[in-house]
């Protein structure tokens, strides 16, 4: 039976690698079962890092899996006529297999720092707390919707002439965008899969995300932090459109809002 069990353990690296190959290569049974389309400028760095770690860990996965199989196959008590190699270890080997992974891990650690800094630390604020570029919109998470606020004519968010939208975040394409994000009640997480953006919203804290899109289209805004029974339905839409389309939408939405609020006032 030793042969059978050895082969079973060999299946782990064989099928394990196969699954990832099917997922990464487009087409086939696992079509579209990989990193979703990236429409951001910075996302490629993250995806490349993901793939780099995948290749690196893939090699270790295959080597250790193959060794486990080979040792099970070769040293099966029923088949192996040789006496046991009576040894308590090897000092040299221990040093080699401590230093090699340590160096590799340190390399990954240092290698990725720039991408992290770019995403979370190249903070677009000045010392007085104002953003270098005014935020395009304020995104407020609440159970279970996204409230989006654009500045009105005065170009300041938080005044009476603001434009309020629920769940639809419109953005001009190719533009460097800063968003102010906040939560009104519990923790939420602002997750844009297609932009490789995720940031938990912590009530009581002022937070920002920044990115640059490179393609128009409609994408998902996902809440990725448990926020209550309706967590699953806290879905928003990200609408990336051309500068002209964005301006047109903004003007008409503002007009629509003013009209309805004027009507509401005249009703009183």
């Amino acid at each position: 039976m030793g042969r059978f069990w050895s082969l079973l353990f060999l299946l782990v690296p064989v099928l394990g690698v196969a699954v990832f190959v099917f997922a990464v290569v487009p087409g086939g049974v696992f079509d579209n079962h990989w990193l979703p389309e990236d429409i951001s400028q910075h996302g490629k760095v993250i995806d490349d890092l993901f793939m780099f770690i995948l290749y690196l860990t893939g090699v270790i996965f295959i080597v250790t899996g193959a060794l486990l199989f080979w040792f099970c196959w070769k040293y099966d008590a029923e088949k192996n006529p040789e006496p046991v190699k009576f040894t308590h270890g090897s000092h040299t080997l221990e040093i080699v297999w401590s230093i090699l992974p340590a160096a590799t891990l340190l390399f990954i650690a240092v290698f990725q720092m720039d991408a992290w800094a770019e995403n979370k630390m190249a903070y677009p604020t000045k010392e007085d707390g104002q953003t270098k570029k005014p935020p395009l919109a304020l995104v407020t998470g609440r159970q279970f919707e996204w409230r989006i606020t654009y500045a009105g004519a005065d170009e300041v968010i938080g005044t009476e002439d603001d434009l309020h939208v629920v769940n639809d975040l419109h953005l001009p394409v190719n533009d460097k965008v800063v968003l102010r994000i906040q939560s009104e009640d519990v923790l939420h997480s602002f997750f844009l899969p297609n932009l490789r953006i995720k940031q938990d919203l912590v009530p009581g804290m002022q937070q920002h995300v920044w990115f640059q899109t490179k393609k128009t289209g409609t994408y998902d805004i996902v809440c990725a932090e448990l926020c209550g029974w309706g967590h699953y339905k806290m879905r928003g839409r990200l609408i990336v459109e051309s500068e002209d389309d964005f301006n047109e939408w903004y003007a008409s939405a503002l007009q629509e809002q003013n009209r309805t609020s004027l009507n509401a006032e005249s009703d009183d």
Partner: protein
Amino acid sequence: MNTSSAASHGHGHGGGMSLNHFISTYVFSKDHKMIGLQFLFTTLLWFIVGGLLALGIRWQLAYPWSDMPIIGGRLFSAEGGQISPEFYTTLFTMHATVMIFFVIIPILAGAFGNYLIPLMIGADDMAFPTLNMLSYWFMWPAFICIGISFLTPPYGAGGGWTSYPPLSAVRTAAPGSAMAQTWWLMGVTLVGISSMMGSVNYMTTIIQMRAPGLSMFRLPLTIWSMFITAVLQAFALPVLTAGGFMQILDRMLGTGFFVPEGLIVNNAAMVSGGGQPLLWQHLFWFYSHPAVYIMILPAMGMVSDILSCFARKPIFGYKPMVYSISGIAGLGFIVWGHHMFVSGMNPMLGMTFMVSTMMIALPSAVKVFNWLGTIWGGKIEFTTPMLFSLSFVSMFVIGGLSGIFMAATPVDIFIHDTYYIVAHFHYVLFCGTAMAVMGAIYFWFPKMFGRAMNETAGKWHFFLTFVFMNGTFYLMHILGAVGFPRRLADPYHYETFKHLLPMNRFITWCAIGMVASQIIFAVNFFYSIFKGQQVGRNPWRCNSLEWFAPSPPVGHGNFDAQPIVYRGPYEYGSPEVDTDHYPQTQPPPEGVEASGDGH
């Protein structure tokens, strides 16, 4: 002989006395073996509960909002047999709570720690038998609290096992969970008290009560890992206990440890405030990250012993193994922030935690290489415990490597809180720890009951579990790579995740197969207790001290002769003797110096 059982034997006349005898032997026993078995049976029962809860989650992900066959109508009659979104949050909260606090931690430390520590160090019992008894009986109030929490109408606690405030701290944030969340917090705190009593006992016992000749570097790795685990628990737990009480105060008395100013929850402004939700996350993970190692280190120790025994060869690199266990434990205290990379914590701190997290992969890698070194050049016997242990190594590699993706902070931005992390921790905790526990049950069963479990059934159990569990958890990596978020009752209304339904159905059927395969184990387990093949003291030809005792070990006192230790526990295939094993208690032949200290 135990004084209490001696006393009850002495007065053993009449029904009342034999009832006392029954209670002191099987219920309020101070014998570490009985307490270990109590933990074992209790945790295995909870294992069934946790598994069924997981199937509930899987059902919803495969067939969202559809009637659950057979049992749905009885369970959720109000929803017409469907799982409601509220109940879904309760399902995953309870699945994690039960599996972590009632299964993995107590089965490793409570069941195997209790059973094996005195036997493997050649002691009569634990240092504090009464404390030991209490550590088991403090689990029961915890069971009751969590049970009430689960059954509180309209549905139980739904804050996730991480219980992040303000969702968990503000009552109105999860209206249905009302008192359930408070009961949950009390339950978890009580589990902590039980673990604390156990850990004090284990540390003292291992330091003070080793048999003559058993130096620290002659201890089996199982004992080393139990010792380090006890240290981890003793130092990390108080923080969770404090955090738990703070959250209870926030809920009950309106304090504001974790509730910030100016919240508007459910259209109502909060009165309390001035707190910081991230504080809870720091306190929680300061315990719960070391807890991850509490859930894997003992498994690593037991696997090391089993691998060496069935490779008929000394463990490769004993001292590096001990140092890497200690290294994991030490580093384990400074990596908790990697759960919080995107939490809003200062990103500068994220960088620090990233480096320490990368470094903790190193001792784990060293252990894997040493396990491979152990089976290299051996004479491998493919027994059931050996198969489970080999699969532990194979699976732990996957769980370890997938951790590196999450440790890399920029990658974590994308895969945080997706199925990638779900795949990762199930590979470590189920495919790793649970498989090691299964192996350990098959391995030490003959010692516990004097009878062996059936090998054929054991191999079928292994084969089916191994195949189905990989079918269940491996594809979750692929889901995670698409960004499929965890804890969503219905992820398919997102365009990005719509097409993942077929893969989820496949996973669900594998999960059902995996749970069904455990029936073989349950039948084998109970059949073998009564009808299994009777075996002697040392059926596996193993070296360590527990096999020197009778099977099962005699009453209180364990050994029928005082064990005296001449060497470490891994001298298989030693040229000093003709047999392929060389028990720790066997005096060396004439003219040979005592050997076998760690190398």
